[in-house]
């Protein structure tokens, strides 16, 4: 028998203060449990630019390392490390995919990337977790700015 009614899904996280339940999308869960492009060997990794950002309120910290093609200014590799919750980890992981897919995004385009686009690709984040998607982009901007200022010299 087909049951068209969707069962209410079990909550992933329950708000400590309000008992409000959060639900993470399957994509968020996948990126959280199987994060892409994490930098494991920091000492031997050669990169063109690096940026770090942190949220002093919730304590999250993210660092991204970029390899950029000097001719096309496309991002060839985006490695990262994040200290934070599932949303923060999944957001950085997704960002690293978005930046490097289809031959890599140009740094001009990367600077225009919005948290909304990351959240959309993650099939949504709970409203309270939206801020987690901003941090990675902050680190990215820092890295790109560093890259550009180095080239000017």
């Amino acid at each position, binding site marked *: 028998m087909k049951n068209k009614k969707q069962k209410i899904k079990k909550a992933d996280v329950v708000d*400590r*203060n309000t008992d409000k339940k959060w639900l993470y999308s399957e994509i968020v869960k996948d990126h959280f*449990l199987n994060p892409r492009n994490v930098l494991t060997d920091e000492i031997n990794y050669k990169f063109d630019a690096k940026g770090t950002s942190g949220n002093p*309120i*919730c304590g999250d910290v993210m660092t991204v390392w970029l390899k950029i093609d000097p001719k096309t200014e496309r991002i060839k590799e985006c490695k990262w*490390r994040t*200290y*934070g919750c*599932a949303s923060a*980890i999944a957001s950085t992981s997704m960002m690293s995919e978005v930046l490097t897919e289809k031959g890599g995004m140009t740094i001009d385009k990367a600077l225009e990337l919005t948290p909304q686009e990351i959240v959309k690709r993650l099939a949504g984040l709970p409203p309270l977790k939206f801020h987690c998607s901003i941090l990675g982009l902050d680190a990215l901007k820092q890295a790109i700015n560093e890259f550009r200022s180095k080239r000017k010299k």
Partner: protein
Amino acid sequence: MKNIYLDYAATTYIDPAVLQKMKPYLTTAFGNASSLYSLGREAKAAIENSREDVAKILGVSPHEIIFTGSGTESANLTIFGIAHAYKDKGNHIIVSKIEHKAVLESAKKLEKQGFKITYLNVDSQGIVKLNELKKALTKKTILVSIMYANNEIGTIQPIKKISKIIRNFRKENPLPAFHSDACQSAGALNLKISGLGVDLLTLNGSKIYGPKGIGCLYVNKNYKIEPLIVGGNQEMGLRAGTENPALIVGFSEALKLAEKLKTKESQRLKKLRDYFIKNILKIIPRSRLNGHPQKRLPNNINLSLPGAEGEALILHLDQYGISASTGSACTSSDLTPSHVLLALGLKEGLAHDSLRLSLGRKTTKKELDYVLKILPKVVSDLRKMAAKY
């Protein structure tokens, strides 16, 4: 997949024997306890028997027991009930900084209405500073509310010493009343009022293998409280609304069973707790125990695991079938970490990286050995992934 529940401090399942005792009142014995015919009298008798059972465990008179809808309601009834009944005597209330939100938020609400609230500090292991309490007491103090044992870190307060301080003060002053939230203590610690010296005590069903939606408040007959809910004359006019005999019976049965099992079960859990703590601190570098090493609930383990954020930890452990909780800001709507851990003086990072495991009747050494295997791996994975400022 394994199913290892280590969040008994959040809530427990209903003991099957307790559920059996509740069943008739959910089915055939459905009468309204205020009705005069036999079906009503049957419900009334069940409620009054339960009241007597609870009173007996606390060593008090049945008239001093009020059934409520939750531990939170009992705490609210205490804070607002005393505040409004004694507002002509004073406007000062003392609470500890690590109280449950049910107490803290009630106190904050009164603060907005013009009451003065003192929030007592605790030491680094969570024990209330007694000299601060002594200094805080004034002629205007109408209520002191300090929890028996903390729900997050398990620290047990020296309730007897606290009630002595208050009684000494009362030799020359009529007030304050002393309330203690004992929701986490039932089934583990002594509940005899004569031994505690409290004037009001909060208990609930959902932490003691009883039903949710039922709480209880002991109020010493020398103190009056204003009700929160008015209507009929149920619960001696202190909590109006048709009583729920099934929940009341469930609560008293659960409390009786918890008392019966208390000594043996506490010893068993203490052994498991200390076994786990000893090993995990050895295995995971830079891990630390939050709370007091000895003066702690037999079932409570609270760790800080630097570099592994709490929400990420919980969700990873969930993948392995382990249910636990955290004081991390990432699981709260206001993005602040646990007020209890911060009150201990923990840096915010250590509060974010906290993990609470609370053991219960079904917890076995085998389960804990499994967690001892999984947790270090999860922490190590998260640390490898973590960025540093």
